[in-house]
């Protein structure tokens, strides 16, 4: 087992808004091993993007604030180091790509300019060397005529090509970890497959770890080595991808998997999980899934289940498996 690259320990990130305190990320712990692809899965609003942004320390304060926990990157707690040191890590050792390629690139600067920036900033390459490296990167992400593309503007490229440019930008300084926040959600399926293949290929070539945030179980199945399922700001289950898909433990994970259409099984109605994601403001001490879970017991509505080891490399946070009534 390769060494742990990133370890989240009881991370708490709250947002202080007019309507009250939103506990977006509430006591989250998990780790990412070097060279491994960890997928963070959950409905929108469960805190998966906030977790990533907390890792990058890009939470806008006000109104957001990281109130507790640690994020260890190669043993260093990123929450304690000075902003200037953090800035050296961003884009250099940890890189990030976003969901919306159409608006993630600066419309008034050439694509090449935006690729060269991190190079010039972090690797102190000269302009001409940076330009050569940028052309290499554009070719690596699979875009033809790289030498022309480098001088073109974002609005002249398609959505897929822009996402490739984003990837080129993120890989410019050979980061150890690449965070991809729903990289393919905004793209159509064919492009989505190409981008995922590209990411898998690049991860293998560079032995880079990948933290992939998505709500699409298809992507998880295809890419993930390890899966972390989040719900209402908490991790409710994690484990190797085969375990999670073959033997889901937490009722919410089961619900998610059932909701996925399976080829060959014709059904007149897809399964839906009743109820809605709870309002993030004023979450009680109960298991947040209790009011939607059919196995909900009194204990569930009273207190929160802790995240317990459950099998070789999996964990689950549910009173069903709390040793009490293990079915």
């Amino acid at each position, binding site marked *: 087992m390769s060494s742990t690259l990133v370890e989240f320990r009881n991370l708490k990130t709250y947002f202080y808004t007019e309507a009250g305190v939103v506990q977006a990320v509430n006591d989250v712990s998990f780790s990412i091993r070097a060279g491994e692809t960890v997928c963070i899965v959950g409905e929108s609003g469960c805190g998966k993007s906030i977790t990533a942004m907390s890792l*990058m320390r*890009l939470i806008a304060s006000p109104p957001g604030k990281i109130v507790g926990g640690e994020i260890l990157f190669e043993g260093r707690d990123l929450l304690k180091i000075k902003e200037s040191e953090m*800035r*050296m*890590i*961003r*884009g*250099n050792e940890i*890189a*990030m790509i*976003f969901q*919306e390629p159409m*608006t*993630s*690139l*600066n*419309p*008034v*600067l050439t694509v090449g300019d935006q690729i060269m*920036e*991190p190079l010039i*900033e*972090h690797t102190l390459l000269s302009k001409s060397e940076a330009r050569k490296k940028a052309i290499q990167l554009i070719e690596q992400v699979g875009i033809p005529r790289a030498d022309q593309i480098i001088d073109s*503007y974002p*609005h002249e490229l398609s959505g897929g090509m822009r996402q490739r440019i*984003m990837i080129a*930008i993120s890989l410019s300084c050979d980061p150890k970890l690449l965070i991809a926040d729903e990289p393919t959600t905004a793209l159509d399926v064919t492009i989505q497959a190409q981008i995922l293949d590209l990411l898998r290929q690049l991860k293998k070539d560079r032995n880079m770890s990948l933290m992939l945030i998505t709500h699409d179980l298809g992507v998880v199945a295809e890419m993930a080595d390890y899966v972390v399922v989040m719900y209402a700001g908490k991790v409710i289950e994690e484990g190797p991808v085969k375990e999670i898909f073959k033997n889901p433990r937490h009722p919410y994970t089961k619900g998610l998997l059932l909701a996925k259409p399976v080829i060959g099984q014709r059904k007149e109605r897809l399964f839906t999980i009743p109820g809605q994601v709870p309002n993030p403001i004023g979450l009680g001490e109960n298991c947040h899934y209790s009011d939607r879970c059919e196995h909900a017991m009194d204990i569930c509505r009273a207190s929160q289940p802790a995240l317990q080891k459950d099998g070789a490399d999996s964990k689950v946070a549910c009173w069903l498996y709390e040793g009490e009534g293990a079915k």
Partner: protein
Amino acid sequence: MKQLLIRRLIQSIPTLIGASILVFLVFTLAPGDFVTQMSADANMTQERLDEIRALHGLDQPLYKQYLTWMGNLLTGNFGESVLHRQPVTSVINTFMWNSFLIAIIVLVLQWIIASIVGIMAALRQYSIYDSAVTLIVFMAMSFPSFFLGLLMLKFFAVDYQIFPLGGMRSTGSTLTGWADFWDVMKHLALPVIVLTLLNIGSLTRYFRTNMLEVIRQDYVRTARAKGLKERVVIFKHALRNALLPLITLFALEIPGLFSGAIITERIFNWPGIGRVVLDGIFQRDYPLLMGFTMLLVVLTIVANILADLMYGVADPRVRNR
């Protein structure tokens, strides 16, 4: 880019003609002419007044007057200012550059201060600094110009005599070179302060509004994710996009550089073109007024073409249209 320029130049010809007709009508519609002034004289007779009007061709039908005037204009002859009894071009030349001197200093000061103050206010939105800046900016904008002028004159020139009482140079000064330069600077300090204070408000708010818009964009977050210095993120990525709509505002300032500030020049006794034009309006000095307004029309058209060109340079999305 060149193609856009040519198209706009061709378009400007009908505009110029349209403008010249409108300018001509606006002034001839204003009742009375400079001869009316003379009629107040005791020994003037009606025949004499008609003679003078005939000499200046004011008795011709309107369209004829317009054609003669336009004819001269095209040959560069702006006609003779009736008030100063000198060619219009020389009157404009003597006074316009004094107005230009103040206007250019105010423009530079105004844009520097407004950009810094506006951006800082946007970065620290809803902070004390932001509301303090907003309050001061609104206060400065809320004074009528002559009110602020008199207030400044009272404090700085009369009570504490830090600055001179108006005018452009000390009386009878025979200074040259740097000494003369500082003398003029001392004299233009108050008008510059007044004009900067008056104009700074709206520009600061435009900077703040645009900056607020741009800061929330995704590409600014991407820039930060790249680990660029905050300074680079704000001034390279954010500011360039925030400046786009303001380019048009900057271009619109160009004609203002030459038109002079009527009220401020009057209060500070500054020999600018604004004051001369004001007298021209009240004494119906048509040649001067029409000549000067046409100059402003040309300047405005040039400024707008410049604005669109600069917009094209700044915003690639619009460039190749």
